[in-house]
């Protein structure tokens, strides 16, 4: 059995962890307690496992953990600062944009990637960014509304 020691930045902090060659990034993130990272389809179709790699959304079920060495990973757990929720999290709560909630961490991470790049996206841009995030409760209208609201809130801050 092959084991490898890797280091990466997780939610702003350096972590060193021993991983098996076959372990995917999602496996290691969940092992490290990042339970917001969900496994849905396992093949990159559903987006529940999306995290940010150096600021860009990626599917953590399609990446081996060892490939995250020396990179920077952000999960939903890394969004709140000192107990203060991120504007996206606040907007999802205020607008009741979460139904069963399983897809929401992946959606918020995609939305974070989008707002960092396009601070005031149009509805079309939001829907285009979310193509790889499936919500089986089909609550897309509220989700899009929450992302727009968070963008406006950030713009007025």
């Amino acid at each position, binding site marked *: *059995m*092959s084991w*490898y020691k890797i280091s990466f930045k997780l939610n702003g902090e350096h972590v060193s962890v021993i991983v*098996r*060659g*076959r372990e*995917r990034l999602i496996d290691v993130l969940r092992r490290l307690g990042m339970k917001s990272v969900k496994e*849905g*389809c*396992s*093949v*990159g*179709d*559903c*987006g529940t496992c*999306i995290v940010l*790699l150096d600021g*860009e*959304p*990626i*599917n953590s*079920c*399609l*990446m*081996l953990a*060892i*490939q995250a*060495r020396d990179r920077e990973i952000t999960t939903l757990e890394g969004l709140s600062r000192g107990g203060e929720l991120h504007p996206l999290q606040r907007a999802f709560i205020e607008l009741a944009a979460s139904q069963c909630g399983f897809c929401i961490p992946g959606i918020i991470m*995609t939305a974070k*990637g989008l707002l960092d790049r396009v601070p005031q996206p149009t509805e079309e841009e939001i829907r*285009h*960014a979310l*193509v*790889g*995030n499936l919500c089986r409760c089909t609550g897309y209208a509220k989700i899009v509304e929450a992302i727009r609201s968070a963008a406006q809130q950030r713009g007025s801050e």
Partner: protein
Amino acid sequence: MACSAWGWLPREIPELEIYLPSRMGDLLDYLAGEGRGASIIAGGTDIIPAMRRGALRPRRLVDITGLRELRYVKHDNGIVRIGALTAVSQLVSSVAWLGRRYYCFKAMDIHFGSWSIRNMATVGGNISSGGERDLVQVFHVLEGYARIKSREGERIAPAWRPELREDEIITEVFFKDLGKNSWTWFNKLEMRAANGIGIVTVSLMLRLDDNYVVDEIRIALNRVRGREAGRAHEAERFLTGKRIGYEMLREAMEVMEREISPASDFRASGEFRREASKILTRRAIEAAAKMITGGEA
């Protein structure tokens, strides 16, 4: 996950030894020596599902993502060069400076997976996987070539058919810049609005002369004969030297109808694919001609 819909149950990825080269020379030595037969992982979007399906069971894997010098898109004396580790999203954004005529790359923003997949999937990976994959068709109409390296040296092969040996790796794809009066197109008919698998894909390169006559046209389909991807050469020959018009396009699509015989599968019948290929190709030619002429032809 929708295992029953896919018809397979995900398996654990087998135990693996992973080699992490940081220099090209080390990688080539490894592939030619103790790592012979090892599989290569870059973006992971193809290989991880393949391992989970059990279609691929490598004992050794080489992670080449450390070779960051292979991530580039550049324009060098009339040649466009794309590093093998360039992510598809990087290819999409390169259109901003490469020129709007490379709409075929821009179209990947709509048709190639989702944003997260485009951030992971690499140009070299898509070409190496081959078959009906989107960039294979695109490089077919761009007449792109793959630079392939091994410990023995370097060779150049068509990017749409690199036929890699197990000790070889694609390091770059390059093609001649298309120049003025040209436009490219890519379109895909899929079951979903995006992130689906193409039933029909059409890639096009069109160049008109100053009188709006077809100087050169290249059409690639994901299925030309059976499951084989390729060019619609007869339709291309028919169109070359002619001025684009409604009647001429109708005749050209009749030529294409006789030329292609795509295979049926559970996604669509061959007959449907043939019809859809004609429609998508005609629309692609119309759109490209409009972009070149500003709507005059």
